[in-house]
């Protein structure tokens, strides 16, 4: 039906430039897109996972420079460790320079806090899959909304306690299971307890262990689009996991008011990259890669879920495997194994 042809005879592969005499205005579409995006606003859903006491809520407040965490919303609840993993999500509308964003922070109190932590990631997996399911249901409706509300978890920040040794089995298990369904960003929490050398060796050990266990954290190597991307992402991969310190209190340092933690031996400046890597995390998550994180969730994790789900129904509803040209016919073993891992 169509063939790509160049209007003027040029070497194949070359893009045709519009003549300089007059300006067509195609690049005005960028402005139009920007306008549309500003009007619609953005959505971002972050999940924080880690044992209690690692500073998750504080970090969220620091990242988004406002009281977005669950604790700020429920100030009067006494801090008790729940008996099972609960999922609590809080949504906020934030706005900056005309850009509106609906930010949802999903907290998981109770994770890793029990004596027996077996399968404590399952409620989390279930929650994530439930969000995918809701989206899928809406997508296959006949009368569907113009903009399907996106509650899918875009990013999961996993807090590693600063032991300085290596990853604990719980950490490995959790990340191994969840890196397949969501973008995981591991961070070393309360990093002000590690000296710089300890921090570096800890990070190296963690990276080794992640590699050894085949855990792909964000940014995943396989989703790099081109050489430029790969370069940028390689730099990030060398720094993972970020050693962060969170704080929502301001102190006076050198005449400026900055966020920090004041101790007897000095003040740790949160946004000083010589002190901790909070700034890198913030840049990655918000300033440079937010769209990319959302894209990977949308086009890869969600699609994987969708494929699996649709194939499951296929097997559910037919006694024989379908003989019409279904692009993916999974082996029954594969599906069964996956199902057991989900359950």
């Amino acid at each position, binding site marked *: 039906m169509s*063939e790509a042809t160049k*209007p003027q005879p040029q070497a194949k592969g070359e893009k045709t430039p*519009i003549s300089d005499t007059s300006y067509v*205005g195609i690049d*005005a579409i960028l402005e139009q897109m920007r306008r549309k*995006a500003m009007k619609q606003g953005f959505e971002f859903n972050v999940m924080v996972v880690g044992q209690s006491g690692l500073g998750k809520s504080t970090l969220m407040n620091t990242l988004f420079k406002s009281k977005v965490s669950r604790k700020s919303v429920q100030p009067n609840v006494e801090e008790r460790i729940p008996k099972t993993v609960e999922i609590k999500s809080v949504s906020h509308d934030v706005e900056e*320079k005309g850009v509106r964003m609906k930010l949802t922070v999903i907290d998981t109190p109770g994770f890793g806090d029990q004596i027996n932590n077996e399968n404590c990631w399952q409620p989390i997996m279930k929650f994530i899959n439930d969000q995918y399911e809701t989206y899928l249901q809406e997508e296959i409706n006949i009368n569907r909304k113009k903009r399907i509300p996106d509650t899918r978890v875009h990013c999961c920040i996993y807090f590693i306690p600063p032991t300085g040794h290596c990853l604990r089995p719980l950490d490995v298990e959790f990340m191994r299971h969840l890196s397949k369904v969501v973008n995981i960003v591991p961070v070393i929490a309360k990093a002000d307890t590690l000296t710089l050398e300890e921090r570096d060796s800890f990070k190296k050990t963690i990276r080794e262990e992640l590699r050894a266990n085949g855990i792909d954290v964000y940014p995943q190597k396989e989703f790099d689009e081109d050489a430029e991307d790969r370069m940028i992402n390689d730099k990030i991969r060398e720094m993972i996991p970020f050693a962060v310190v969170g704080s929502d209190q301001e102190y006076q340092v050198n005449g400026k008011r900055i966020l920090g933690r004041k101790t007897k031996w000095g003040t740790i400046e949160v946004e000083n990259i010589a002190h901790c890597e909070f700034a890198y995390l913030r840049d990655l998550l918000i300033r440079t890669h937010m769209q990319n994180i959302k894209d990977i969730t949308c086009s890869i994790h969600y699609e994987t879920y969708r494929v699996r789900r649709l194939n499951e129904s296929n097997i559910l509803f037919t006694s024989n495997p379908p003989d019409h040209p279904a*692009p993916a016919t999974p082996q029954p073993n594969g599906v069964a194994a996956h199902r057991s891992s989900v359950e």
Partner: protein
Amino acid sequence: MASTEIARQAGEGARGVPLSGHVGFDSMPDQLVNKSVNHGFCFNILCVGETGLGKSTLMDTLFNTKFEGEPTQHNQPGVTLKSNTYELQESNVRLKLTVVNTVGFGDQINKEDSYKSIVEFIDAQFEAYLQEELKIKRTLHSYHDTRIHACLYFIAPTGHSLKSLDLVTMKKLDSKVNIIPIIAKSDAISKSELAKFKIKITSELVSNGVQIYQFPTDDESVAEINSTMNSHLPFAVVGSTEEVKIGNKMVKARQYPWGTVQVENETHCDFVKLREMLIRVNMEDLREQTHTRHYELYRRCKLEEMGFKDTDPDSKPFSLQETYEAKRNEFMGELQKKEEEMRQMFVQRVKEKEAELKEAEKELHEKFDRLKKLHQDEKKKLEEKKKSLDDEVNTFKQKKTAAELLQNQAQQAGGSTTLKRDKERKNPPETHLFMMNVVF
């Protein structure tokens, strides 16, 4: 484990919190734009209009390049659609532009079915997208979107009113695509006639319920310009790729003995308005409308046609899949039934043929028997005849010999003595006896 949502249902859906510092997500629109730039854009225009109205020239003028193709002949037997894709680049924006032309529109003697191929084409693009969306393993992000985003309808510059072909075609297309009507070759109409023509066209469109594309007025930054432009529809355009020197500049124009029509002069024609609206202001909105309105409508109709319905809140999930499976089983059942029927019919026919053949065989046998009998009868008759003939021959022989003998005797009765002895010597004794009888 059920998830609890705190503070999600307040008011519109979430509470607003003030930020105490610069977070940095104001770069989100930039991130989004960068991603789109890397990905490239695509835009598909459909040009509908009679042959010779300057569609290809207008496309060339709009996008400032020479698209390929020679003018088509006027003797096409039906309306076909020819589409060409071009890759254009301006600064850092890459655009995959597809221009679809209707070849032979309005040339036939009987134009009743002219609109059909256009509608089919548009539906085919929607169908392709729907198929991709419904696939299990799909690649929507790298899918080359071929759905028509804008339809430029070229109206012939008669100066009177819309032709009925135009009205019928536009009515069929208005729910499938964004229609932007334009008056082609508008340098053939004078200014006063043009104003009247535009009013006539708009009123005819309204009275016939044709929904043309309205430039959106909900965004404040473009509301004003869009609403002014809305009142200038349909745009009266002139297209030209030739350049003429006016003053000290080379401008695109058409040169006549009585003057020069400058394409980009707003007092001469509405070309600049069209370019402004189509490309510089509303390209993204056209794409969005196509996806959220026209495509959704097509999808809804198609799925309902296939028998799917949305589920009730408490029924099983994936009714799409379920209904599909049920339909498929139904279809397979029908197929099997048909197969069975055909098999039965075949068996029947075979039986009949067999019976026929048997009949024929029997007849043949009978015939054979009959013939045999006949043959035997004839043979018998023949034998009888032969026998009788033989008898006759014998009788005749006897008579002959008797007659001869008599003759001889008669002769010998005269010279009988000598002859007697001779005869006695000659004649055998029977004859002697006979003669003796005769003497006495």
